[in-house]
């Protein structure tokens, strides 16, 4: 956020555009991280929900396009968790919940930082808008 004292309207406009571009890109990233947080939360809720179910209970497995095939629940004391790079590891229910909770906490922290940066960019844009408004006022009062 340097160069804020620059009074050249063209530079101010370029800075404003750059901040806007960065803010839009950041907004997109925030949406994606937000979806990952929701995904984590949904997985934790599913694991917790399954704790009340018995082995052999009837369920349905999604196969896409809103369609399902029938299945029976098995090995409810185990959860297979993706750890990235195409690798999944079988974990006990408490371990799986802990892994997912840690992941969610990390994503929450990232989201917090991103929102703070977005706030700074918004402030930067507002500051430029105020400078431009002041310059316009100066020009108008000079011509009157």
């Amino acid at each position, binding site marked *: 956020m340097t160069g804020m004292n620059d009074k050249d309207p063209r530079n101010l406009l370029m800075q404003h555009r750059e901040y806007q571009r960065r803010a839009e890109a950041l907004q997109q990233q925030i949406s994606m991280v937000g979806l990952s947080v929701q995904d984590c939360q949904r997985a934790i809720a599913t694991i917790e929900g399954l704790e009340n179910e018995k082995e052999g209970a009837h369920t349905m497995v999604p196969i896409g396009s809103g369609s399902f095939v029938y299945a029976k629940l098995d090995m409810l004391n185990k959860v297979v968790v993706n750890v990235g790079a195409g*690798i999944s590891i079988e974990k006990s229910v408490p371990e799986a919940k802990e892994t997912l909770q840690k992941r969610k906490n990390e994503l929450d922290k990232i989201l917090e930082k991103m929102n703070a940066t977005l706030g700074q960019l918004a402030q930067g844009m507002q500051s430029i808008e105020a400078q431009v408004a002041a310059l316009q006022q100066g020009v108008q009062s000079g011509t009157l």
Partner: protein
Amino acid sequence: MSTQIPPQVQNQIAQLQQVQQQAQSLAIQKSQMETLQKESELALEELEKLPDDAVIYRTVGDLQIRSEKQETISKLKEKIETLSLRVQSISKQEERISKRFNQLQEQIQQSMGQQAQ
């Protein structure tokens, strides 16, 4: 405006823009490779903590295939090595592109300076 710029300088500016696009494309590629590398390193860390008889699955297309710990670890190490080499190669390309960018920038500045005189 463009009619005042000599064709030679216009050509240099076009080259500069092309080089800039190449640099942006390389930066994106490098960032993607680094992300994959980091992800693989974290997965490797997780795997190394597990006992040898741990149940592990590897994604193959839409399927999850049961795999042995040691085999998965060596495949992941190979993947990290390949990604690291690609990152190094992109970094070298970036250096070359950066030099070319500076060279063109200087040439344009000189040409514009001569034109102003």
